[in-house]
């Protein structure tokens, strides 16, 4: 017996049902991500408990119970943090002992960093070529603004302090170490044995010793190595030593960039009859430097964090200013608040720079393919 095949009629279709609650939507997400097994559940509960212990207490201490105004620590009567010093002493944290009327020069120098960096990081922007001359002149402009002379009142470098000192030492170190790093990187790849040996020796020595020992060299040994009629300020000596230290790291970063350039570029340049320096300057280095920018930014972040070490030789960077402040009877015992503030500042600056470098890396990667 044959029966007709079964056809379901269109209006007989079962209605669509929503997906199971336990598998989708927020509960599904929770199950998959937070509670997907005994270990995960345990970890999640433990983490939630830890957060519940820490976060409310932290917020209370930092904001809700804290005091924000006053002229000395006795004005802070609450149980929370005492931020009264912020108003009074923020200038010292930012500028150290720089004369108050002249701090506009520091602000101006800091602000000018943006137009100096822009043509290097965004080479397609309008007016980049002209601004590049400004970038080249920027170190001299900044030095003139900070130290003075020729019409601006001279400010001796022992008045530099606070964040300004950290930024000055860090930026000066990186900017000055760039040409030296390029030379060292090229030297390391050179075919001349003596040049290669010297470059390797310099890079390995300065990467192998801690920065603190180099700071001691700057503070105590450099005056012995230089003729005694020629004396440099401590800040200048520190910048010299930090530059040498940074050039070794910079050389390694640029070496990585040079290695990433395909051999075809070198060969094409040589086929065109370009000499060594022309080839490097016109073809290879521009590409290598562009690739190395994330590495350079990372080196700067590391160097910027390391500038806090100058406290060991008695320079008044931001950490030392904090220490000095809390030994003043007006502001005794505020170690926690100052440490939190300084940590937050470094975190914000370094984190934003590292995010930016990650963004740059991704952009450079995609632009290649």
């Amino acid at each position, binding site marked *: 017996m044959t029966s007709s095949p079964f056809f379901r009629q269109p209006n007989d279709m079962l209605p669509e049902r929503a997906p199971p609650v336990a598998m989708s939507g927020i509960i599904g997400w929770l199950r998959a991500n937070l509670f997907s097994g005994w270990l995960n559940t345990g970890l999640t509960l433990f983490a939630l408990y830890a957060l519940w212990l820490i976060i409310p207490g932290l917020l209370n201490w930092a904001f809700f119970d804290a005091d924000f105004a006053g002229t000395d620590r006795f004005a802070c009567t609450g149980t929370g943090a005492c931020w009264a010093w912020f108003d009074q002493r923020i200038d010292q944290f930012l500028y150290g002992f720089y004369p108050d009327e002249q701090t506009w020069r520091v602000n101006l120098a800091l602000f000018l960093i943006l137009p100096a960096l822009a043509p290097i990081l965004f080479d397609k922007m309008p007016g980049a070529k002209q601004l590049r001359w400004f970038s080249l002149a920027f170190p001299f402009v900044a030095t003139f603004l900070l130290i003075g002379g020729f019409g601006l009142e001279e400010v001796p470098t022992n008045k530099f302090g606070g964040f300004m000192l950290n930024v000055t030492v860090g930026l000066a170190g990186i900017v000055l170490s760039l040409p030296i790093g390029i030379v060292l990187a090229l030297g390391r790849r050179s075919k*001349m044995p003596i040049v290669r040996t010297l470059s390797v020796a310099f890079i390995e020595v300065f*990467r*192998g010793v801690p920065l*603190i*020992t180099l700071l*001691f060299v700057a503070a*105590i040994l450099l005056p*012995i190595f230089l003729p005694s009629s020629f004396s440099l300020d401590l800040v200048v000596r520190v910048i010299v030593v930090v530059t040498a230290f940074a050039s070794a790291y910079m050389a390694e970063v640029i070496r990585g960039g040079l290695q990433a350039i395909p051999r075809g570029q070198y060969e094409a340049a040589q086929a065109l009859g370009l000499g060594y320096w022309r080839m490097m300057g016109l073809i290879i280095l521009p590409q290598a430097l562009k690739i190395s920018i994330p590495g350079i930014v990372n080196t700067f972040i590391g160097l910027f964090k390391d500038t806090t070490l100058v406290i060991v030789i008695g320079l008044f960077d931001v950490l030392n200013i904090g220490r000095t402040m809390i030994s003043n009877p007006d502001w005794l015992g505020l170690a926690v608040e100052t*440490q939190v503030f300084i940590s937050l500042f470094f975190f914000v600056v370094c*984190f934003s720079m590292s995010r930016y470098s990650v963004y740059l890396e991704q952009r450079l990667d995609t632009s290649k393919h």
Partner: protein
Amino acid sequence: MANSRQESGFQIRRIWSDERARSALFQILVVLGLALLVAFFVANTMANLQARGMEPGFGFLQDPAFFEINQNLIEYASTSTFGRALVVGLLNTLLVSAAGIISATVIGFLAGVFRLSNNWLVGRLIGVYVEFTRNVPVLLQIIFWWSILTGLPKVADSLSIGNSLFLNNRGVRMPAPILENGFGWVALAFLLGVFASYLVGRWARRRHMATGQPFPMLWVGLGLVVLPPLLLFVALGQPLDWDIPEKTRFNFRGGFNITPELVALWWALTTYTGAFISEIVRAGILSVSKGQSEAAHALGLRPGLTMRKIIIPQAMRVIIPPLTSQYLNLTKNSSLAIAIGYQDLVSIGNTVLNQSGQAIEVVGIWMVVYLSLSLGTSAFMNWYNSHIALVER
């Protein structure tokens, strides 16, 4: 005539155009320039030293130091020499660096693996830890942990375990072992046990590869390492005594003390370097192609086994080179001990420098020691890298 002029012109031009000759000339100039620079610095140094009445030389290392050190792994008294003080400092540096490297690797691997877990909360929290510790200067972190540790109870209110282990803000004081006669045999038995378990492990692995038969290596190895020394220990009459710390008026006396400075420095270096290592491990694990873990799951391997046997061995190729530089950074960052008063090489060197005035020699010693440590660590890691390199078809 035209010939001879052409010949002489050819000679001079050759120095400029022949690459070999040019590079030789350039190198000679570089060496000359460097020699002049060095001569300049040496001349200045000799003149300045003479003006200050200081004599260069390492003879000062035999002079008595006259200062005390609070954490010393070898015998030291205030009448010991400067040289011995520097050796104590070096041992302290090695101690905190070695301990730090081990713990940072453990924390780094755990954090790296857990950041990639599918538990969203744990992954995010570890991310917060990593970003925060990576972007705050390590000096601040060291000082932070030291302040926390000095907030522990005072000596009078020490926390104690079994009345022989004491915890207070001056450190952890624990019983120190006094080795008596016969302990040497126990130690020898232990070393032999380790060696034997290594040999048995190799044999078991070879047998496993050849025939597929498993071998309870964990228990056998543990037995070989623990049982013979234990039996020998009991048989020789327990040649081990303990120096239990006892409370005196101000402090505890006896036993072995771990100062809060050491713990703070070690822990700060661990968390700081661990954050960087976790990023390296994460990048390494992500670099292994996803097909590997999918194939492993298809074969029925659980996630833990997959990670251990499949992913991490392949990821190690990518992880080891940057790991080396993190280890070197940790060793160099241990020099920050001077900021909290842990007497490592830099801290003691600073004291020696002040008391003896011989700055150049002390800084020279620092450089040589740290360079040797760096080179030694790199050499070892390079050997390990080539040792675990995957042999591809």
